[in-house]
């Protein structure tokens, strides 16, 4: 008699454990993992271009034909460990100014986020393209 009870108890325990493990598996497998660092990086490059335009840094870089302000921005304002690269091109897609954050390399990158923003210099149309990635 004891043996039956023991067996029944063991079966019930196993069933209960199985139900719970199945439920846990259902919930865990149904989750979608989101890498917030990537979301943040995407927002950072969008914001960076907006800030650079509103500060007239993009316009000034084209007028001066120099990447000094862009270098300063990338090296001081673009947070570690993110890397960034900015190109300023005109309406015919000719490259005017570009800048790569110090210590970063554009080769062997896993995933790159890209944003573009138009801006006006005098009567000419330009656009800035910014790439962001983690090394």
């Amino acid at each position, binding site marked *: 008699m004891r043996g039956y009870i023991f067996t029944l108890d063991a079966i019930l325990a196993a069933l209960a454990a199985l139900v719970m493990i199945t439920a846990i598996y259902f919930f865990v497998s149904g989750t*979608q993992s989101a890498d917030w660092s990537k979301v943040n990086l995407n927002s950072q490059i969008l914001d960076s271009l907006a800030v650079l335009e*509103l500060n007239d840094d993009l316009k000034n870089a084209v007028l001066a034909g120099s990447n000094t302000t862009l270098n300063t921005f990338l090296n001081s304002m673009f947070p570690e460990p993110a890397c960034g690269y900015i190109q300023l091109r005109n*309406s015919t897609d000719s490259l005017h100014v570009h800048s790569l954050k110090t210590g970063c390399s554009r080769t062997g990158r896993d995933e790159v986020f890209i944003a573009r923003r*138009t801006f*006006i210099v005098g009567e000419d149309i330009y*656009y800035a393209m910014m790439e962001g990635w983690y090394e």
Partner: protein
Amino acid sequence: MNRGQQHLSWSKNSNESARNMKGVMFTVSTFLLLNTVLFFSMFYFSVSQERGGLSFTMFGDRHRFLESDIAESYLDLIDVGINHINRSGNQVVFNFSSLYEVSPSADYQSKITEYENFLEGLFERKTNLEIDASLVPDFTISPYNISFDTEGSVFYIYTDSTDMVNTYSITVQTNKLKNESSGSGKPGHSGPGYQYINVTILASDGQMIVSDERRLDPAQINDPFYSDFDDGSSINVTFGQINGLDGGLMVRVSGLTATINETVLIYNAAGNVFLEAGDEYSIKIGGISHDKLVLGFE
């Protein structure tokens, strides 16, 4: 049963009871642990479901980013700068740092069209977004539909509700020197209670040629604030009935170029005010159409 047997039985029962207790504890702790894992996974699942809207939010960010980008470039193209939009009670102050260049050679529509072509061509290909833009170089302040428009050598401000705008202050800088001015003038007062108009006309070096204020009847055809120059060129700033519409403000140049510098409008508006691109504006980004391009708000 002798004492020895009794002791053995008691000891046996005691051991069994301890074993049973251990079993219960094991079952309870296992159950609690599994429950903890289950609740944790349920929580993780629910958080993950909330993050399901992430891709949509990122799309929305991209959309808003592009609209703000177009708005910013649009303002640059039409030479419009906004210093601030302030409110005091029901009174709203719009302060522009610049407003168009008024000149016979000014052609904002061409600049806007070039920008449209750029957006729909190279920029669309690069961003992989479907952009269909139709822009015009005029804009309005809502409510009361205060519209700003330019046609080469003429600049207009019109409003649907004349009584609501109580002050216009406008500074216009010409490309002429003060000593080239052959004469200037201003309208007579219409009387107290009418709209307050303040006009300043500057020379190219910033010297003042005309600076005056008047209270003018918006329903009358009033004389202009004006300055004439030796070479026959002139600039007029007129407030009142213009082209059959009451409460209009017009800057007209002939043979010269003028940039509208600081401009202040004060008007009564209880609700929120915002600045948007003209009535004919429409833009389609990624298949979603918008017919409002908000350029600024209080």
